[in-house]
């Protein structure tokens, strides 16, 4: 079996893992809180990709296909949209207080 011409579940899982790792690296190396937030979205999307791939390759006996994994991804997308709205509102109110979005400057719980 040729690894380049036959796309298996492993390919999708590798892609998902790589995407997650890039997101995690971004969270660790970036200093702007907004970009860190974008990298969190990348990690969520990596998880979505893994779920869709598992859902696609899961076939019940008799060739019946279920959509539970895709429902889960649908819910994750919904929750992520709500979470982005709340998180950005928090960032805006933080910026109003401190006039910065650099995480190195945000090192006090109270000021």
């Amino acid at each position, binding site marked *: 079996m040729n690894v380049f011409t036959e796309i298996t579940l492993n390919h999708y899982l590798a892609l998902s893992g790589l995407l997650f790792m890039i997101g995690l690296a971004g969270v660790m190396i970036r200093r702007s809180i907004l970009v860190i937030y974008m990298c969190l979205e990348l990690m969520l999307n990596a998880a979505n990709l893994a779920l869709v791939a598992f859902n696609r390759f899961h076939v019940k006996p008799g060739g019946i296909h279920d959509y539970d994994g895709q429902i889960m991804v649908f819910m994750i*997308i919904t929750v992520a949209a709500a979470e982005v709205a709340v998180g950005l509102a928090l960032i805006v109110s933080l910026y109003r207080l401190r006039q910065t979005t650099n995480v190195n400057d945000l090192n006090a719980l109270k000021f």
Partner: protein
Amino acid sequence: MEALFFWIVATGLIAAALAVIFNRNPVASALFLATTFVFLACVFITLEAFFLAVVQIIVYAGAVMVLFLFIIMLLDIKAEAKRPIPFGKILLVLALSLVFAFFFGKVLTDLPTGQTLLQWNVHGAPKQDAKEIGMVLFTNYTLVFGTTAVLLLVATIGVILLSKREVK
């Protein structure tokens, strides 16, 4: 042909994701994030999840990216300054990568190989996946669906409370 499409889309996805974390300008990062979402929607299409691909583009590349760009413009965020990366952080990243690579390799070697896309097409794939997802969503997952509605309401009220100025 499908394999070629997968490789093109996967390369684009990883390249766009890398561009997100290596650009100093947050606006460029946000635009590359939108590119990442579009490529991910293409990957969903290769997995025959057409409904999710459309939702991905509408919700992420549409709504979420507009929010991000709006906040970047509102706060007028400048590009990050160049700075040396501390040695401890490089060590941390390397250690985490090694741990990740170990578990990743273990998962990939433990999985049964040979599950290709063709296997499903033999059984005959249902093509109307929006209809199928709707059926499952409104029968087995009605409670989850209702809870999501409450969550969205709570998020809306929370955002309004967070962003309103204190009245003196």
